[in-house]
């Protein structure tokens, strides 16, 4: 085996893979969240649709997105490999094990939380990513007044295979900008009218919260980045940003559409 192969098949190497992919997914969450905040804009989805187009058609981002898909898959596969190994390491289970008295619940249930998240990611991507790329979606036409950007007229255009996913024309005579985008916003809006679907999202975000409360900090421990001067910052970010802020902000989106 080569040096790298040996490294990544060792127990510590496998954990490094988990940590690095995990941290990469965390950075993605931030980007995804900032983008998705466009959903809260009162512009009938114009900004959100523009953002969706940008994310799917700007080459560097596309490259990163494939890295991201790979990370999710590797993170899940390595988790499975490690879990199987861990199971083998204790062939006879204890009849009583008081885990709650020596370790946080989150840390002992990363596999369950991760599985929930994986199911969620599949559903989530199927409903939005897949549909955006492949389904025959209608288009939204935004006519934005150049004099008053808050004055937006929206109309729906039917699916047309020849139409660009996103186009922008500025009509100086009419003093307006015409933007035509594939209408992902509508899909989002429609999806979040169903209560159980919203609930699925909220549950998934709760799982995300618990997964990251342990996972973020744990990744730094695995990498060996535990400088006592910065450790409190890592802990703070892990709990308050990735454990609280990010999941709540994400969960707010379906709730926003449901109650809107």
């Amino acid at each position, binding site marked *: 085996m080569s040096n790298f192969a040996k490294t990544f098949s060792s127990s510590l190497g496998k954990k490094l893979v988990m940590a690095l992919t995990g941290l990469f997914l965390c950075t993605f969450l931030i980007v995804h969240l900032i983008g998705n905040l466009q959903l809260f804009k009162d512009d009938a989805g114009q900004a959100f649709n523009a953002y969706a187009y940008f994310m799917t058609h700007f080459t560097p981002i596309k490259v990163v997105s494939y890295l991201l898909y790979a990370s999710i898959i590797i993170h899940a596969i390595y988790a499975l490999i490690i879990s199987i190994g*861990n199971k083998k*390491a204790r062939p006879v289970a204890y009849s009583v094990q008081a885990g709650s008295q020596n370790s946080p619940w989150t840390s002992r249930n990363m596999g369950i939380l991760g599985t929930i998240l994986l199911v969620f990611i599949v559903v989530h991507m199927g409903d939005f990513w897949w549909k955006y790329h492949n389904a025959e979606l209608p288009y939204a036409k935004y006519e934005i007044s150049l004099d008053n950007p808050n004055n937006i007229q929206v109309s729906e255009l039917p699916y047309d295979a020849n139409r660009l996913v996103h186009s922008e024309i500025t009509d100086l005579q009419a003093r307006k900008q015409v933007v035509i985008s594939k209408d992902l916003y509508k899909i989002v809006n429609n999806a979040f009218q169903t209560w159980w679907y919203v609930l699925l999202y909220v549950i998934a975000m709760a799982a995300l919260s618990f997964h990251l409360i342990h996972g973020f900090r744990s990744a*730094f421990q695995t990498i060996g980045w535990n400088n006592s001067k910065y450790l409190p910052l890592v802990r703070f970010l892990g709990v308050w940003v990735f454990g609280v802020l990010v999941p709540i902000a994400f969960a707010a989106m379906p709730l926003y559409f449901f109650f809107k």
Partner: protein
Amino acid sequence: MNLTLKVWRQKNADTKGKFVTYQADHVSPDMSFLEMLDVVNEDLTKKGDDPIHFDHDCREGICGACSLHINGRPHGPKQGITTCQLHMRTFKDNDTVVIEPWRAEAFPVIKDLAVDRRAFDRIQAAGGFVSVNTGGVPDANAIPIPKVIADEAFNSATCIGCGACVAACKNASAMLFVSAKVSQLALLPQGQPERYRRVQAMVAQMDAEGFGSCTNTGACEAECPKEISITNIARMNRDYLTAKLIKQEEA
């Protein structure tokens, strides 16, 4: 006080074990847990039964021989002590106490509650030393070591090799043990020449023994009778990854 004991009995490594229930009556709160078992064993012996086998030696919390998973926790419900230091006043009258051996692939049961922990010795033998022969070493004060570093190395060195970390870990991982041993020498100047060779050799042996992976639950730290910190694990991770990914020499 009177207690009901559910004790794991297993004749040897090749046979299947099972729980057997014993009654321990008139237990004095001043007894240690092992002394309570001694009394039970005296009764069993007198009845012609095989006494319960368990490892123990110094009975003052330093040799690391005693083990026992008591009511779901290695070394019982109290923190920072070994089973031999656990006193019966910790329990209440009529309590049921479940006593199991350490459970891990790498710690096979020898008999009843005694397990084979030689995997730890093999990990140590793989690299847990400074290669100096007897004689021919510099004067002890020729190597000044900052007090904070010496103290930190000492904290790592307090490990008694009992295996509670493995027993507590839901993955039966030996990371706390190995990292404490690696850290002690990685912190000290004496350990530097072999620092990266050592960590690689010891981790390789740890993996070969069949211990699980660390998932940073912190159970090991919570149950360690010497309260060794998982900071050691981070330190070992760092050294290992540095050795594998950055250092050029096949040290």
